[in-house]
């Protein structure tokens, strides 16, 4: 069976090239709009997720993970998207230990990701 690269390659926190390639657009103003929509959408949801730490709230947690998973991929937040996918899968599989472990990683990764996107937005805005 072929080995998936994700097992060995550290995933990028934020891939700057993914969105421009997806949109076929390098116009800074246009890109900034998309990044800002993502931040406005994902940040409040990620905060709610970090509050859903009790196993009773894991179903809601999976709903939230699902809600920002696709946009995280699309915007280039690869590591976050993978973590959200794994989190959703862990909840659906009823794996509480894995869910708790992934949940602990979520806060720091969100901070890292959102900071990287904000920094990139700042760079785009002075171009």
């Amino acid at each position, binding site marked *: 069976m072929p080995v998936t690269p994700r097992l060995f390659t550290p995933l990028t926190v934020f891939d700057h090239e993914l*969105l421009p390639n*997806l*949109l*076929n*657009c390098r116009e800074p103003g246009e890109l900034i709009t*998309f990044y800002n*929509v*993502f931040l406005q*959408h*994902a940040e409040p949801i990620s905060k709610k997720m970090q509050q859903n730490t009790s196993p009773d709230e894991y179903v*809601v947690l999976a*709903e939230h993970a*699902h*809600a*920002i*998973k*696709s*946009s995280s*991929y*699309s*915007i280039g937040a690869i590591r976050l998207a993978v973590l959200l996918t794994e989190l959703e899968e862990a909840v659906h599989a009823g794996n509480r230990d894995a869910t708790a472990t992934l949940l602990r990683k979520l806060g720091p990764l969100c901070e890292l990701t959102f900071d990287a996107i904000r920094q990139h937005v700042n760079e785009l805005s002075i171009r």
Partner: protein
Amino acid sequence: MNPAQHQSGPAAAHVLILDDDPVYTRILAHQLKQHGFECTICHKDKELLVRLKKGLNPDVFILDYHLGAKEASGLDLCRKLRAYVNKPVIMLSANDSLETKVSCLNAGADQYIVKPCNIAELLARIGVVLRNSPARVHPSDRPPTTLQLDDELTLEWETGKMSGPTGAHMQLTDKEAALLEVLVQHRQSPVSRYEAFQSIYGFDMSPDNRSIDILVSRLRKKIESVNRSIHIKTLRGQGYRLCL
């Protein structure tokens, strides 16, 4: 042929995207507009209904399977759009399970694409559904959220109210309305209990499950109470068929 050019005329084909993710929908709409499509975005099922009632008439619907806990499921919307509006539906979902794909296709989806999808694939699939879709015009005397079963029997999307001649009406449950929608879609050929079950519940039916038979029995009684000219026929070994 450019997939954005619908066979009904030179105007760009109109795509309605229903997905609760504001970022993903914007990206998709941007990509489709670059290829000449006109796009409308809806984030909630209620928003879709309002737009349809106001006369929005897209050529193709792109639906997310999972619209959030408080929304109707993409499966229910797919089945309803196929029964009421009868326009092509493409399901877009992160869910790649065979059961879900089969359920959506049985519920009337023309295509099922797993997210994240490549725009080239999506364009090709939109092209396929538009090529296979004859231009349909809704009669202007009724909103697209009213299903006209025959001259004298209608079903309302929002309320599930079935109305017959002389003002007689009957309230259908969600599942009864769903079964009627499935039967309407399969007017030309019988629908098996398995197909009907998957279209309504979204998963496989066990052989000893009698849900569809019970639903058919209840729906028959309700239809007969408002219009005796329509009935559900049992075709042995094949399933059920709506006879108008």
